[in-house]
C-alpha cells in the first residue's frame, strides 16, 4: 500500500513538474542553447544531429517533444527520490514538501553547479566520465551532509555534516585543460542565471507537489 502511494504521488508530481519545467525551459533556456549552437562549428562532434539544422519546424517540434519527455522522466525520477525521503522521515504535506524541494535543489543543482557551472553547447569540459563521477559524488556528499546537519542532534555530527558538504569542493571539480567556450560570455552569464531560476522553480514545485500528494493519497487510502 505504501509503495503504491509513493509511486502514484511521484508519477503525478513528476509529470506536472516536468511539464512546468518544459514551459519555463522553452521560454528562458532553450533559446539560449539554440543560439549557442550557432557558434558551434559544423566540424564539432557534440551535437551534429540538431546543431546543424534547427531551422525546420519538424526538427523544432521533435526537439520540444523529446525535451518534454526527458523532463517528465527527470521529474518522475527526482520525485521518487524526494517521495522516498519524505516517507522515511514521515514529513508529508506541501509545506514540508517545499523544504524537501529546496534540499533537492541544493543537492542536485546548486552543489554540482558550484564546481561544474551550467554549460552551453560548445563549452570545453574535462573528460565526460570524470565530470559525471564528480557530479554523482557531490550530490551524494551534499545529501549526506545536509541530512547530518539537519537531523543529527550531537554538535559533533553536525560538524561532520559540514565537512562532508565541503569535501567535493575541497577536492575540486575536474576542469578542462583550457577553459574556453565558443559562445560569448554575456550569453553564458544569461544561461547560468536562466537555468538557476528554472531549476529553483522546478524543485520548489516538485517538492510541494510530492508532499501534497503523499498526504492526500495517505488520507484517502484504506488502511
Amino acid at each position: 500500500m505504501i509503495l503504491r502511494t509513493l509511486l502514484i504521488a511521484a508519477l503525478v508530481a513528476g509529470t506536472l513538474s516536468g511539464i512546468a519545467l518544459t514551459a519555463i525551459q522553452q521560454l528562458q533556456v532553450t533559446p539560449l542553447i539554440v543560439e549557442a549552437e550557432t557558434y558551434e562549428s559544423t566540424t564539432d562532434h557534440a551535437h551534429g544531429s540538431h546543431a546543424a539544422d534547427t531551422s525546420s519546424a519538424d526538427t523544432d517540434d521533435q526537439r520540444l517533444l523529446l525535451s518534454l519527455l526527458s523532463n517528465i522522466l527527470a521529474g518522475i525520477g527526482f520525485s521518487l527520490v524526494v517521495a522516498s525521503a519524505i516517507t522515511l522521515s514521515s514529513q508529508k504535506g506541501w509545506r514540508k514538501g517545499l523544504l524537501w524541494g529546496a534540499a533537492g535543489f541544493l543537492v542536485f543543482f546548486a552543489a554540482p553547479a558550484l564546481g561544474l557551472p551550467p554549460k552551453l553547447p560548445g563549452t570545453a569540459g574535462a573528460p565526460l566520465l570524470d565530470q559525471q563521477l564528480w557530479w554523482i559524488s557531490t550530490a551524494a556528499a551534499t545529501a549526506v551532509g545536509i541530512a547530518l546537519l539537519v537531523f543529527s542532534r550531537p554538535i559533533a555530527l553536525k560538524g561532520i555534516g559540514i565537512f562532508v558538504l565541503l569535501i567535493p569542493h575541497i577536492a575540486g571539480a575536474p576542469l578542462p585543460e583550457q577553459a574556453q567556450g565558443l559562445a560569448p560570455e554575456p550569453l553564458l552569464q544569461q544561461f547560468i542565471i536562466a537555468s538557476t531560476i528554472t531549476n529553483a522553480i522546478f524543485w520548489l514545485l516538485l517538492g510541494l507537489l510530492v508532499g501534497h500528494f503523499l498526504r492526500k493519497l495517505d488520507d484517502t487510502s484504506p488502511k
Partner: protein
Amino acid sequence: MNISTTPAAKAENSISSRLTASLTALTLGLIILFAVGFVQGANDVIHDAAHDTRHTMVFPCH
C-alpha cells in the same frame, strides 16, 4: 487470527514496510535519473534526446 494486530507488531510492520517501499522507490528513481542524465546510448541517441534537459539541469553533457 491475524498475528500483526497488536499495536507493537503493527508499528514494527509499518516501519519495515515504509523502509521497503522507500528503498524501492529510491532505487527506481535513481535508475530513471541515471538514464536521463548519464547514459549516452548507441550513437548518442539518449544523449541527443535528453540534450536540453541535461544542459538545463547541469548534468554533465559533454
